[in-house]
């Protein structure tokens, strides 16, 4: 009972996001069309590249096409932006009101980010997945087992994305440094997640550096598991890789928030 009571405010945050997303159905349909347009362009580019020669490629064209459609379907996982409401709160100073709420501020922001990634992802991915798998060459998971493993990897990806977004939100509390982080992190995450091109097409030295970073667990890891390109041990290792980064980013975010909050100065009455 008492545990339930603690969860209520966090659940309310998720409910608010759900209502927000379902309000703009036309926008969702337009967004889906945009994603399919992008997918078609990118599939055409890669198909043309594959025609040039397919020496030393670790993925077939069909696998690459599946990769590209999964990117489009799950694009809302990407941690591109700070929460505009939190930005407004920080700029106007009303962020201090947040401290009055009887919840842990970091977890409240984390749950908020979690809702901000999981709900749009679920809403956007299903129709694109359906259309692309019926008409546009998106293959189904390699096997039932990899399909299941893929789902776990997706959940980890969303937990990771929320951790990155929360860190970006916390960085708002540090004006200049934060500005830099908010620009650089999304740029790097596009490149190092596999969103721009599948990571296997990058030169090897670069790949091993990117393998170390958390971003690949947003897109590349789930997709590779989906395609059956990883062994059981590799899958397990990738899960642990994601979990360590999630823990690390949450720890960093929490510590930074504690520092920032201790420096808050409330002006006026």
């Amino acid at each position, binding site marked *: 009972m008492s545990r339930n009571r603690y969860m209520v405010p966090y659940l309310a945050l998720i409910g608010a996001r759900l209502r927000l997303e379902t309000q703009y159905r036309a926008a969702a349909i337009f967004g889906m069309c945009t994603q399919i347009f992008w997918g078609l362009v990118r599939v*055409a*580019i890669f198909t043309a*590249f594959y025609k040039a020669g397919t020496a030393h490629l670790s993925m077939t064209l069909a696998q690459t096409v599946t990769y590209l459609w999964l990117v489009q379907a799950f694009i809302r996982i990407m941690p591109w932006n700070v929460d505009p409401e939190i930005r407004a709160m920080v700029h106007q100073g009303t962020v201090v009101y947040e401290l009055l709420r009887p919840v842990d501020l970091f977890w409240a922001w984390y749950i908020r980010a979690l809702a901000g990634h999981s709900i749009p992802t679920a809403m956007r991915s299903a129709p694109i997945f359906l259309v692309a798998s019926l008409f546009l060459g998106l293959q189904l998971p390699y096997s039932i087992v990899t399909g299941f493993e893929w789902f776990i990897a997706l959940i980890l990806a969303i937990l990771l994305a929320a951790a990155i977004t929360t860190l970006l939100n916390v960085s708002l509390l540090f004006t200049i440094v934060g500005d830099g982080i908010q*620009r650089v992190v999304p*740029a790097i995450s596009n*490149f190092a997640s596999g969103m721009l*091109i599948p990571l296997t097409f990058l030169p090897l030295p670069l790949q091993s550096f990117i393998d170390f970073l958390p971003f690949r667990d947003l897109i590349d890891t789930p997709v590779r598991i989906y395609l059956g390109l990883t062994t059981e041990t590799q899958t397990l290792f990738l899960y642990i890789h994601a979990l360590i980064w999630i823990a690390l980013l949450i720890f960093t975010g929490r510590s930074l928030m504690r520092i920032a909050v201790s420096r808050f100065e409330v002006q006026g009455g």
Partner: protein
Amino acid sequence: MQYKASFCLLTFGQFLTTGLEFIAVIALFHRFGSIQGWSLSQVALLYGIVGSSFAVADATCRGFDKFSDIVKRGDFDRYLLRPYSTALQVASYEVQLLRIGRLLQAGIVLIWAVWHLNLNIWDIALVGMMLVGTTCTFAGLLILSATLTFYTVNTPEIVNALTYGGVETASFPLSIYPGWLIILFTWVVPLAFSGYYPVKSMIKSGHLNYLSYVMPLGGILFLVLSLVIWSIGEKHYASTGS
């Protein structure tokens, strides 16, 4: 320009975003060699023209990009009262200097491509014309999407498919795309006239093709046409304010 550190970081962020996008393109050429017989430097020429033109168009036409905000706030009513052209007022709503990051990145790619391809003076003049033509096409596109706002108030996200999608599509040789995309970016949005076709004849034929010098004018024509459509749409404007 008041917040220098912030401005530098934002510019750097832009530079990094598009820079990494181009590194991804380089990686693909490194892996595959070429795309339909086009080498990296040839595609880089297209990429550089399209990228820098878009940066200029987007920086100068920012108001059209944000036009739905202007309409929603009811600010457009004031624009109508002033004795200047509304299009000019909207264009000067805000000059977005942040696009300098993108311009810088695409400009470096363009200069590298021109140098690497050993272009002669006539070719470079043609590249200049293509830059003007492409910039006008993107400007026209932004004006047209803003014109839609007269009818819908909100600018639908799908318009981004034509602007940002146009940047992506036109950065590669058009012949790799399915037919409907070729028609879209040749006859509906004439990006190919000031990008793909002149570049192709410059690179592939080796001798001067006078038609190439006429083609970029298509972009200017498109801009004029979209301004005409803008003034037609303006008559349908109904204020949202009280």
